[in-house]
């Protein structure tokens, strides 16, 4: 094993939410603007390098 190198093993976090307003479920967390997402990722210490979305969800490839 190398003395030091890039840590490939990921940490994975999944958060589920609920709300009383059924309209929320149409977009919900997808309404969080990109600037706010970047702020969250700043705390994690990574950034968005690529993004795509469909009618169900948004997917971001991150740095690191």
């Amino acid at each position, binding site marked *: 094993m190398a003395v030091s190198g*890039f840590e490939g093993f990921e940490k*994975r976090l999944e958060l589920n939410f609920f709300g009383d307003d059924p309209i929320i479920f149409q977009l919900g*967390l997808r309404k*969080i603007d990109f600037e706010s997402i970047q702020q969250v990722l700043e705390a994690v210490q990574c950034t968005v390098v690529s993004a795509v979305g469909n009618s169900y*969800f948004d997917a971001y490839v991150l740095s690191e």
Partner: protein
Amino acid sequence: SSLFVYPTKIIIKTCGTTQLLKSILPLIHYANHLGLTLCSCRYTRGSFIFPNSQPFPHTSFNHEVTFLQDTIPSNLCHRKASIMPSKSSSHSWHVFTAHSSITHHNHSDSDSDVFTMEICMTELDLILARKFFRRPGDGKTGDSAGKEMTELTGINEINPNALICDFAFDPCGYSMNGMDNDWYSTIHVTPEDGFSYASFECVGSVNDNIVHVLRKVVQIFRPGTMSISTTCSGYNNEMLKKMVNAVEPLGLKCRSRAVDQFPAGETVVFQTFMARRR
């Protein structure tokens, strides 16, 4: 690393020395502003190759669990932390879950035949790993080089129906997210010899062609060691048998299987495989 944002679910998966758990509070904050309340939290990871390089709170699983316990709201009262073992002390699966109540199921994962599969692979085949290095001066962008790697390695054949967003890092490394209707898949590769690593994760149904998916993943990376962690609403022995039957003909022998139960009826199965050549 990847981020998936659904209307009521967020998944973040990050490698390196990122401080993933520091995302919890800001995410709860933004969700609350949208009228959404956290009802479950799940944190998982394998055993780090370089644990001493991790920053707090990722310095140990105890520290991570303490941080989680202190950070998530008190309404998530059904909590459990577990380190699931394998035959090798250096390969364990770390799981923390917390639920507010088993009645909040407004996301698709509540379906009984839906599972999440997290695969971790190390000691990648040297020749195959080379495909995840950029050619010096290739004149490509991260996106175009990523697309080339996706096709060159056969990653695009794992799920031909998926819309793929891929990226190649410089000088090496690769990430991709796949979208197939409301189901995601994701691959991350660190190809350097000595600490090579690749992960594959997807959500799927027990009725899907899991054999095809697993075989393709093994053929793309030919790992020396591989772990498969599945999370679903019950213990599905048929599915686990299918997994072993898919992987073993490709030279990987199942070495261990650990099963644990978590709040809200979740079952996690952690299986490890090693190449017979070793």
